[in-house]
């Protein structure tokens, strides 16, 4: 595995988006993963619709049938991938733009721009996560967002952080040496794309430490899924 890797340098990451006052992080995580997978499959970056997932995806968690994707009231990335397998795929952002509100489904199958071929759950293992990231593109992950409300920049590595997952984000890369001044040493980190706009964090991104000493900080390794795409556009 390379020491440093960032899918932003390879064109597989779309622009930073803003979910607004809507608990739709899961849809941004899922669409971001499919944007990357579709880029790897087609060589073209298609910016995909989250609103389609917010409006149309009501897939339920097989382990908890009462827990279903529910637009601004939350959802789960793997359930979104299941929905995408069944529905055929995602439209482009410009064809089905984001409103930040729950709405009625206006999905048109003829406008599908990216389709899911398959999705997988990656083991709770940093090496496997890095390998899947490099091989298959950006990964949809869950994280505990407790420290993200006040985060401005740098490599986050809280001494104490719960592992209860409450936020869906996109893992796009990793680095070997983010400097941690208080600990006087270089600190490896994950690079995470968030969906709170460019005026949050490090231009919309969050860095969190990784490595054997700090494994699974804020639950970041716990819920990792990868998706592969088939090209479904008529163009």
């Amino acid at each position, binding site marked *: 595995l390379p020491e440093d890797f960032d899918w932003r340098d390879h064109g597989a990451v779309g622009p930073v988006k803003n979910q607004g*006052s809507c608990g739709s992080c*899961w849809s941004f995580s899922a669409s971001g993963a499919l944007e990357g997978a579709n880029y790897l499959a087609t060589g073209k970056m298609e910016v995909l619709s989250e609103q389609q997932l917010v409006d149309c995806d009501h897939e339920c968690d097989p382990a908890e049938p009462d827990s279903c994707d529910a637009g601004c009231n*939350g959802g789960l990335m793997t359930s979104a991938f299941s929905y995408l397998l069944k529905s055929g795929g995602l439209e482009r952002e410009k064809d089905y733009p984001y409103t930040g509100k729950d709405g009625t489904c206006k999905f048109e199958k003829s406008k599908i721009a990216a389709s899911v071929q398959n999705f*997988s759950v990656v083991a709770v293992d940093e090496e*496997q996560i890095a*390998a899947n990231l490099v091989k298959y593109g950006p990964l949809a992950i869950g994280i505990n967002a407790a420290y993200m409300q006040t985060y401005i920049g740098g490599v986050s590595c809280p001494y104490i952080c719960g592992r209860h997952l409450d936020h869906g984000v996109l893992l796009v890369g990793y680095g070997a040496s983010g400097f941690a001044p*208080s600990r006087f040493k270089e600190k490896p980190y994950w690079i995470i794309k968030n969906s709170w706009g460019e005026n949050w964090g490090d231009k919309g991104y969050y860095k969190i430490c990784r490595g054997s000493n700090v494994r699974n900080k804020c639950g970041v390794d716990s819920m990792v899924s990868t998706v592969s795409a088939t090209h479904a556009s008529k163009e």
Partner: protein
Amino acid sequence: AAAAAGDEEPLIRQVVGGPDPLDNDLELDSQFLGFVQRFGKTYRDAEEHAHRLSVFKANLRRARRHQMLDPSAEHGVTKFSDLTPAEFRRTFLGLKTTRRSFLREMAGSAHDAPVLPTDG
């Protein structure tokens, strides 16, 4: 007490000769005004404004705690600084599962990713 020239919270807090800005209403008002202008915040009425100011103050203290617990990152005022942690969770987070349910759902399923080689 020595505060480094960088952006980090000083490890030793100054207790004399310079009051904590959070105990200084003028300083706090000024910070809140800057926050409101920077992020284009508007509040319904004076009562709402006062409530958000109190939440902002609590969040400044929280940011300080986070800075002490997470010294390799920078914590401070963000566009969410006028939201309580509960409001923040309710409005901006939305992952609807626990890790346990995720693992239970996926255990032994067809969706387990194959193990990839990581050497070389």
